[in-house]
């Protein structure tokens, strides 16, 4: 077990190094440089050169790369070009909001998605199954900004129940603050849930279908176990295994959803920070954001593998 964990961690570090390098290169190969966006065109060439030097962009690509890696090893993510503050600070101020949004979305999606998947799998081929399928496919195919704006138009403006934007109303305090934060979360969570529901439903449905045809289910039924127990105890527990794996892997995909959702809902998270940083070619912020993202995806992968091994005795660790 320990050996396995160490091996996985080493592999994780190698993956991380590759991810960091690819991010670095992709950003540098974007056309233009940050000065074309941020500098006033009226700035003369000397001032431009000075700023490039300040950002370390006057050095060769190789030198920049090694300086960046050295900096990373020291645990320093660098300075934001635009905000002129440490990237760690910029990200940390945004991260809690994204974690809140993502966490809540995961929970809600699982709570709705898994039962829906179970029902669809159990009632395979029925009208109910088709309806669930159609609904989730709609969710996965829809364009996030469209869905977001539509929800905002109906539930923010036409029937003004939920606020339009932000994480809370400036100035609220105490218990009202908590309620306010909750109200601001409803529509973004709903949007993300609709989008990601399909992942759980379809996975769960497929593995339910598989599991229900297994021998042990037939055995259970012939033993006279009630149908409810067969489905929810014997089948679901086994069908959950692939779904758990998926939950871990979904994390990376969810970030792309967060970029658009947070932007539409003016939510102050990391996703919106990425959206803004791309427009401003703020390399250090983007590198920092993708680094954190890579770390969490890799960590989730390791964790999923471990959980998987724990859940499924057939997985051999050595």
């Amino acid at each position, binding site marked *: 077990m320990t050996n396995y964990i160490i091996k996985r961690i080493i592999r994780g570090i190698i993956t991380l190094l590759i991810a960091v390098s690819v991010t670095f290169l992709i950003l540098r190969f974007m056309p*233009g440089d940050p000065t074309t966006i941020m500098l006033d065109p009226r700035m003369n060439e000397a001032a431009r050169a000075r700023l490039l030097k300040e950002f370390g962009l006057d050095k060769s690509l190789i030198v920049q790369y090694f300086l960046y890696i050295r900096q990373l090893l020291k645990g320093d993510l660098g300075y934001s070009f635009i905000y002129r503050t440490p990237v760690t600070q910029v990200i940390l101020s945004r991260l809690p909001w994204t974690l809140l949004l993502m966490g809540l979305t995961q929970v809600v999606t699982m709570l709705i998605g898994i039962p829906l998947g179970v029902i669809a799998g159990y009632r395979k081929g029925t009208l109910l199954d088709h309806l669930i399928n159609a609904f989730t496919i709609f969710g996965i195919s829809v364009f996030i900004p469209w869905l977001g*704006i539509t929800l905002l138009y109906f539930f923010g403006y036409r029937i003004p129940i939920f606020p339009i934007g*932000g994480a809370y109303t*400036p100035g609220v305090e105490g218990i009202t603050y908590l309620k306010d934060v909750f109200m601001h979360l409803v529509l973004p969570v709903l949007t993300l849930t609709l989008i990601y529901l399909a992942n759980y439903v379809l996975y769960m449905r497929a593995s339910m279908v598989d599991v229900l045809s297994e021998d042990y289910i037939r055995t259970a039924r012939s033993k006279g176990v009630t149908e409810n127990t067969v489905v929810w105890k014997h089948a679901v527990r086994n069908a959950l295994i692939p779904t758990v794996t998926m939950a871990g892997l979904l994390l990376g995909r969810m970030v792309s959803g967060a970029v658009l959702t947070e932007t539409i809902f003016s939510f*102050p998270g990391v996703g919106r920070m990425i959206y803004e940083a791309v427009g401003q070619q703020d390399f250090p912020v983007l590198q920092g954001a993708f680094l954190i993202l890579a770390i969490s995806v890799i960590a989730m992968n390791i964790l999923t593998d471990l959980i998987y091994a724990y859940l499924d005795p057939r997985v051999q660790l050595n």
Partner: protein
Amino acid sequence: MKRYLTLFLVLVLVGTLFSGVIAAQEDKFGGNLNIGITTDPDSLNPFISNDRIGSWILNNIYPTLMVMNENAVKVPYIADKINTSDDGTQVVVKLKEGLEWQDGTPLTSADVKFTGEILYEEKLQWQADVFDEVESVETPDELTVVYNLKRPYPGFIGTFGFWQRIVPKHIFSEIENIREFTNKNPVGLGPFQLVEFKRGQYYTLESVDEWFDSPEGRPYLNKVTFRVYPDVNTMVLALQRGEIDLTAKDIPRSQAKQLEQDPNFEVVQTPSLGFVYMGFNYNNKFLDDIKLRQAIATGVDREKIIGMALQGDGRLIDTGISPVYEEYVNPEAKLPEYSPQGAKAILSQAGYEDTDGNGIVNDPESGEDVVLEMIYDGNDIYLKKTAQILAENYKDIGLRLNLKPLEKSTYSDLLFNQKKFDVNLGGWGIIDEASDSMYTLYHSTAYLNFMSLESDRLDRYMENARFASNKEVMMDNLYAFQQEFVREMPVVTLYVQDYNFAYSNDFGGFTVYPSDLKGLVDPQSLSGVYKK
């Protein structure tokens, strides 16, 4: 008895009315205004911030010597008077009396002198360049700053006075690295002061007790909160919902139209201080021919562009100088009237004929088809539509214009760094100080002259205007410049866009200032806004 009763009733009635009037007047004070912005300001450091959002917020906290009035004329603001000597080499700035920084320290000439020194030494902004022409700075008394210039330079004070926010010396002289200073607790001098902010969410300003420019000596509002809505559709919904009362960012015509019909909102328009143009690269094998440039200019239907691409939200610009700066525009200098026939005539006179019969005229020297490619920022919907109309215009006169929409940074890179393009469609955000800006855009040595235009005559007019010792000389040269400009045709100026801003009818007292840099959130406007 009855008479007394009537008298009593009348008195009561008058009294009620009167108290109502008093109450209404008192009611002007108080109220919180929420303003929609699209993203955070780049910095709260008044030296460093260089974007629109930064200006919207910081200009309400830090003062400038001059501001622009509603007619785009620069006038003294915290300066009481600004005088230039007859020979144009000395500028005397006299500050208003009794102004104090928000920590109680009086504003003095030392602050103004210091601001210019740091700006120049550290090259903090583009406007630092104007100090190249400054010989020495004196502060003969607490409220007077004297700038001795190396030679007459009319653009100096308009640039420094309008663009540079003045900072308190007693605070900024203590800062070791001004570039990295984030200025989280600004001590400013303006109608408002920053009390709280959460990056990515909001910036709350509170009004000060005394402000010279407010109608009643202090701002009516208690608080102004700038709230971030990155998506303009969401921002408009927030306005309709009442989360914000005003948009600092301009809104598209379709949404402006919708809000115009809503009795709860007021929509106002203000012209840009810049313009959109089509530029020609002189290094292109076809475009160095002045006849071809003139023919294209004659074939461009600018009215159609304004009517269709901008849906009417724009005005014509004829010379390099925007009609917004009316006093500088030479009324004689005009772009050619739109006439496809006229354009074709110019082309055939110059020897351009469709010799191979493929619908595209051939170059008289090389015999090649005159095919050009135009680059532009493909994410800008106005430019996208304009480009399509231009392509039709080219086709109508027998030329071919291939459209190449690009991502903005690619576009800038091709234009500024590589200068690799045939035709570009682009815009200048803000062009002020006509005497100076023409030089920065079109002089043969100017960095922004990516067209590679080289004209001795234009160069001479621009140099003379830039360093004119008096207004007459400046105007003569600006007029001559414009006359030659519309003949030489290095660019075809297409339009000046009008921006739409919307605000809630719950508030009054707004004044709209030119450009999206100022709009309704200029300090001169916000310091007079009240809740109805």
